[in-house]
């Protein structure tokens, strides 16, 4: 998703603060004499370790490029098989490029009623440099996937009419 579509700001606590009370507990457990009680501030049991900060500005971006896979099935192929093939490809791509955060792209996938020619898109959810080059490289690595009846495989992007296919 493009940067200008995000609102940026400090969210607001949904809980409304209510003034609390204080209770004098000095009379509680009075069966133990007062002089037997130790009084003091307890100490944090946890030992602190310096933390890290993470810049999340590249998270949850929907980059303008994606991998589009076309598959051809016989009309009686069960839906589960088609879904499984999408899953197989996504898992393979995820393993090859974990930094891209690849996910099935519901909006850009097409499932025709006859199930014969299915087009599904796999989109990165992270913004990385040289995205198109990375996707083309991935394309070449999955185009011989033996379990999936691939009939078309391409990298598609929004801002140019040209496409790269393998």
């Amino acid at each position: 998703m493009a940067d200008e579509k995000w609102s940026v700001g400090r969210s607001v606590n949904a809980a409304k603060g209510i003034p609390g009370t204080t209770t004098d507990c000095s009379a509680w457990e009075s069966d133990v004499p007062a002089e037997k009680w130790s009084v003091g501030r307890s100490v944090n049991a946890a030992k602190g370790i310096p933390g890290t900060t993470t810049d999340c500005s590249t998270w949850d971006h929907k980059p303008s490029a994606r991998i589009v896979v076309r598959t051809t099935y016989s009309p009686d192929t069960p839906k589960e098989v088609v879904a499984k093939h999408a899953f197989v490809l996504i898992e393979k791509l995820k393993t090859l490029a974990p930094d891209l955060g690849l996910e099935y792209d519901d909006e850009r996938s097409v499932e025709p009623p006859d199930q014969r020619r299915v087009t599904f898109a796999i989109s990165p959810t992270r913004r990385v440099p040289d995205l198109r080059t990375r996707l083309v490289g991935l394309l070449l690595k999955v185009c011989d996937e033996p379990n999936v009846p691939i009939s078309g495989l391409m990298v598609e992007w929004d801002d140019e009419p040209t496409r790269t296919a393998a």
Partner: protein
Amino acid sequence: MSTDPTSQVILPRVLLVIPVQEAVFDLADEQWEVKQPFGTHRFLPPGADFPFREPEVWVYTQLQGGLGPVEVVVEFRQRLDEDTDRVSYRSVGVSAAVRIDFERNESRLTIRETVFGFSLLPFREEGTYEFRLLAVLAGGGTVPLSGVTCDLSMLHPERRV
């Protein structure tokens, strides 16, 4: 299995996960000071809409029961409600790692506290998100740590019922 006792690693358990607005590490006493816990529900600030980015979030955590060194990260993920009994998640991102060493000569009851900072944390849409701690394995994979996680619901103030 290795026979070298010094190579044995036991993953810690997560005791606390609390997102907060501010966190400061006191170098003198090695303690964290945190301010303004987020609670479980948050509203967008006036005029904002989804998708929304929170400029700064700190996630305060406490871990216990580990043995040996462990690299820990926080995964931020969105809970997807699909009108079924099954809850699924979409991973949004993973923090930078903090290395925590549970020394072999100390009590297993020892607690470690640390904080993970996030800048421009994204909330793509209204809903519930989760912070959970993962251990980074030697091979580069991750495994969720047992113990608590933290849900945070980000809501639009004008859509509340």
